[in-house]
């Protein structure tokens, strides 16, 4: 699982049937210091996350398992909204 921040949404009308009804979020991956790390990714929403939320997301084949209709090729899904995060300063 990785940490990211929801920065927006993505809308697609022409898509695979297995993705119908799934909300797509734009998620900015964050590094250890909560700094932006690389390009934003697009993840399926399973927790009603919104813009600005700090979230945990899962990548890879397991991500689709978080969805009701899991037989689709999605490779990332937001699976939790972070309420509080404690980190030891290094």
């Amino acid at each position, binding site marked *: 699982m990785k940490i990211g921040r929801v920065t927006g949404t993505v809308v697609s009308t022409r898509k695979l049937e297995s993705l119908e009804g799934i909300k797509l979020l734009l998620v900015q991956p964050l590094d250890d210091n909560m700094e932006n790390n690389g390009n934003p990714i697009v993840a399926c929403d399973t927790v009603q996350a919104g813009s600005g939320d700090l979230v945990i997301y899962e990548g890879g084949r397991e991500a*689709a398992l978080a969805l009701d209709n899991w037989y689709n090729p999605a490779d990332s899904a937001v699976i939790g909204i972070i309420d509080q995060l404690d980190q030891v300063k290094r």
Partner: protein
Amino acid sequence: MILAKVLGNVITTIKVDGIEGAGYKIVAPCTPLGAAGDGALVVLDLVGSAPDEFVLVSQGSSTRQTELTKDKPVDAVIMGIVDIVEEEGKVVFRK
């Protein structure tokens, strides 16, 4: 998934993927604003996209979870064409 821009087609006759009915495209991963980087990927196009279109690309073993790609050697697919990208409450891309 990542956002990517379709650059063009890849034509092959000698292949062992066992897939009929979908072609290969070259795409460049890009930012929500549509700026493409240097990298490029070959992906299987499951939705019928055209050059310059903004698409959603999925990678890894998840991409075998469609009827067409089940048990096939595929590690990247186009699974949707992007119409709108909204960032920080503003629409940054509209098809």
